[in-house]
């Protein structure tokens, strides 16, 4: 436990990537394998349920610290992190740490697992209080994170893979590949992970995804347009199809297996020869029209998909890269070469399969689902950046988010390696909206009100339309926080209802009608572009403005 606590605080105390990797490497090289396996699960955000309810934990902590419940709540509102609040209010440890706190694996077993299996609340309380008496505040915080299943320390899988690769003496990409898909839970599994030889050649593990970076410069600064491949940036879900042996696996970017959510894709994948891996985008398409992103997320969130949902929201896989063919890893080949092979493997261009335009409504028309599941993401041919800019300008009416620019000579790298893949998105949609509710943030912005619910006018009322988080500078957040505190009308737990005084420019990337929202509209990816200090609440936008955006999006599409 001490080793892991030291790792936690070492990671927490630095923003440098190299230092994080060094901390992880030192830990994994020194920790016993059973501890390392547990730590790996914890660091990769392995989700396991809470071992004890937060309500009980708060009550017991207040009792142990001799404080009224309201003061613990006020402290929590100030700190913004419950695990930390409880750890800090408790009196300093009265006993020495024992065996059950010595190793991470033992601690998980004798406290966290024991809590899950405890007969009743009294038994749980006895376990918790015993640990509290033996751990110092810095260890308690980490222990609470383990208990509540949320131990995020800002290390990506890529960093963990880099550190483990150093420990094992392997290429980072090999380690990243090994880490995907399969949980590492035991000492033996961890040992296999570090094994210098590839052991499971026929696995369905995906390759680490290569991620594009937002293009913040002018496109012409990328040089000769002929060196670049341009594609539409589809508004779907990134996915990797792995077809090896007798099976196929569909992986999300979050490395979740999606075979159950998209059975029709997996079935159709059987047509590819074994040893094929495609990178692409899942999209929902019906009657030759793209369905809104919300439909696709409905599909993705299902464990089992009914026949009815399959018919209502048919999905396709639009392929844009070929990572493996005939069992051969092609990632180090130039994109142009991979693309040529891909076009042979997946010959049907997606733009021929859809009509750009309005989103669909009404029941599915029979027979329009061709049954074709795999399409090729078409390239946009252009002899100048101006031509591409003109194509990009048609993005909204096509229902895409802009363009992807990929260097033709580039290999398929790991993670977000800048320079070869760029997303050149269109400007977001915007409206001025009024702050209605504010909620205290957690983590980095602990204690400050950073989560804002914003509203626009409907007649003489303000209706909430979006919950937005980022976009303001640290100094502005502090200032908004002061105003929020000074203009609070009501408090509901961590949420404050404020007097409408602040106006923000809200940007979003899509908007559609919604029956699930009171306002009747749903905005996608809302964020605060800036604080409109020059505006009063009465200057804010109206719901009708948003409705007009929805109509414009549909009619622009229909005429395109």
């Amino acid at each position: 436990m001490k080793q892991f606590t030291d790792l936690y605080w070492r990671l927490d105390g630095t923003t440098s990537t190299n230092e994080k990797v060094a901390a992880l490497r030192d830990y994994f090289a020194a920790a016993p394998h059973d501890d390392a396996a547990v730590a790996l699960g914890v660091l990769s955000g392995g989700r396991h349920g809470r071992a004890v309810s937060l309500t009980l934990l708060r009550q017991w902590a207040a009792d142990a610290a001799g404080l009224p419940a309201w003061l613990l709540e006020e402290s929590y509102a100030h700190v913004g992190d419950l695990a930390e609040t409880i750890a800090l209010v408790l009196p300093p440890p009265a006993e020495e740490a024992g065996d059950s706190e010595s190793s991470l694996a033992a601690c998980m077993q004798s406290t966290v697992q024991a809590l899950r299996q405890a007969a009743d609340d009294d038994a749980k309380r006895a376990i918790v209080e015993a640990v509290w008496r033996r751990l110092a505040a810095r260890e308690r915080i980490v222990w609470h994170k383990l208990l509540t299943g949320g131990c995020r320390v800002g290390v990506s899988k890529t960093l963990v893979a880099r550190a483990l690769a150093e420990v094992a003496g392997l290429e980072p990409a090999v380690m990243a590949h090994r880490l995907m898909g399969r949980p590492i839970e035991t000492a033996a599994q961890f040992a296999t992970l570090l094994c210098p030889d590839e052991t499971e050649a026929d696995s369905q593990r995906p390759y680490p995804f290569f991620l594009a970076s937002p293009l913040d410069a002018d496109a012409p600064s990328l040089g000769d347009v002929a060196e670049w491949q341009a594609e539409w940036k589809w508004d779907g879900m990134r996915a990797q199809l792995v077809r090896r042996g007798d099976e196929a696996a569909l992986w999300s970017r979050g490395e979740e297996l999606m075979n159950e959510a998209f059975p029709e894709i997996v079935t159709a994948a059987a047509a590819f020869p074994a040893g094929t891996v495609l990178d692409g985008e899942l999209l929902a398409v019906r009657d030759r029209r793209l369905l809104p992103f919300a439909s696709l997320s409905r599909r993705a969130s299902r464990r089992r998909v009914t026949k009815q949902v399959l018919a209502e929201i048919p999905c396709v896989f639009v392929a844009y890269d070929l990572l493996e063919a005939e069992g051969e890893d092609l990632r180090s080949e130039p994109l142009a070469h991979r693309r040529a092979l891909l076009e042979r493997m997946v010959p049907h261009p997606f733009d021929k399969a859809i009509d750009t335009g309005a989103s669909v409504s009404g029941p599915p028309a029979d027979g329009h689902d061709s049954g074709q599941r795999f399409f090729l993401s078409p390239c946009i041919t252009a002899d100048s950046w101006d031509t591409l800019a003109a194509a990009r300008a048609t993005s909204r009416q096509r229902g895409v988010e802009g363009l992807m620019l990929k260097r033709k000579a580039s290999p398929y790298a790991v993670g977000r390696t800048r320079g070869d893949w760029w997303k050149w998105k269109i400007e977001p949609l915007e409206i001025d909206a009024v702050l209605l509710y504010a909620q205290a943030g957690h983590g980095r912005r602990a204690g400050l009100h950073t989560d804002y619910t914003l509203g626009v006018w409907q007649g003489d009322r303000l209706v909430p339309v979006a919950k937005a988080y980022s976009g303001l500078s640290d100094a502005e957040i502090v200032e908004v926080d002061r105003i929020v505190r000074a203009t609070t009308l009501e408090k509901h737990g961590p949420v404050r209802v404020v007097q409408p005084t602040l106006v923000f420019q809200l940007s979003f990337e899509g908007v559609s009608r919604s029956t699930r929202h009171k306002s009747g509209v749903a905005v996608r990816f809302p964020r605060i572009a800036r604080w409109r200090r020059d505006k009063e609440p009465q200057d804010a936008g109206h719901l009708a403005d948003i409705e007009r955006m929805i109509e414009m999006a549909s009619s622009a599409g229909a005429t395109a």
Partner: protein
Amino acid sequence: MPDLLELTPAGLYCPRGDFYIDPWRRVGRAIITHAHADHARAGSDRYLCAAPGKLVLRTRIGSSAPIDTLPYGESLSINGVEVSLHPAGHVLGSAQVRVSHGGQTWVVTGDYKLEADPTCAAFEPVRCDVFVTESTFGLPVYRWPDPASVAAEINAWWRANRDAGRSSVIFAYALGKAQRVAALLDPSIGPIVAHGAVMKMVEHYRASGVRLPPIDRVPPRARRVGDGRAMVLAPPSAAGSRWLRVFGETSEAMASGWMMLRGVRRRRGFDRGFVVSDHADFPGLMQAIAATGARRVLATHGFADSLARLLRERGLDAAALATKFTGETVGDSGDDDDDESTSVDEGAA
């Protein structure tokens, strides 16, 4: 019997003695608990402070207004009201003001802490009927670590930076905090240098007999200072400024009680945060309040409402007092009221 002290638009006032304690407007006679900007404002006709605090107060108020001093523990009669000053343990010359008349005794703490601090006289509990206490860190999450362990942490960090050829920069308020941090340093690790604002106060501390390790001023127009081995003491307002360039590669830390919280450490974006505060932590507040024997407690600064509510639940007559003392605030960006760079003219507003 009317209250001996009352809150007026100019600050805490004693009608019987016709004087103010830490007024935020220009008044006739001001008794000053300590020279931080939220307590000591320029423009009053006449000042009274504890004897060791005279030099720093003079720097703060600038003017030539007369400053009377009183040794700790000695009393003085002002219009028949007995006034004495007692160590508050906050910064050099900081005092609790004891005011007594007609069988009623009040103590106004200003800012205070209970931890040992070699750079100022230790806090001394004073019995009273009404205790006006600060509550900057009046939430139970604030419990200071032992100063020796913080010193060990700071010196280990300095040593590691030195070995990597990096200068160590600690941002700390020019008056009080910087000197306290200096006293925690192990000068055998490397040279200690300070920003001019810190240096001025260091000189006052030395002139008042406080022993500090050798500290050099950063010479103006220097090209390169410290050779990657130095410890640099700078006010928070110097963070991110060009002034830091002469130190080459640096690792930067903030010394403050707020560094107790992970979220604050991350938000402030420094490489390290050291928990060093010149205010009382929550157990310290509780201990100080109990030691006065006061039945009535008035809380100022920070978490006054919470502290007052807790004390009421525990059977005391307690309330929050709406003063303009700001103390250290969690959200500020470095230009604190406790920092020297802040304007002292606010009192006129």
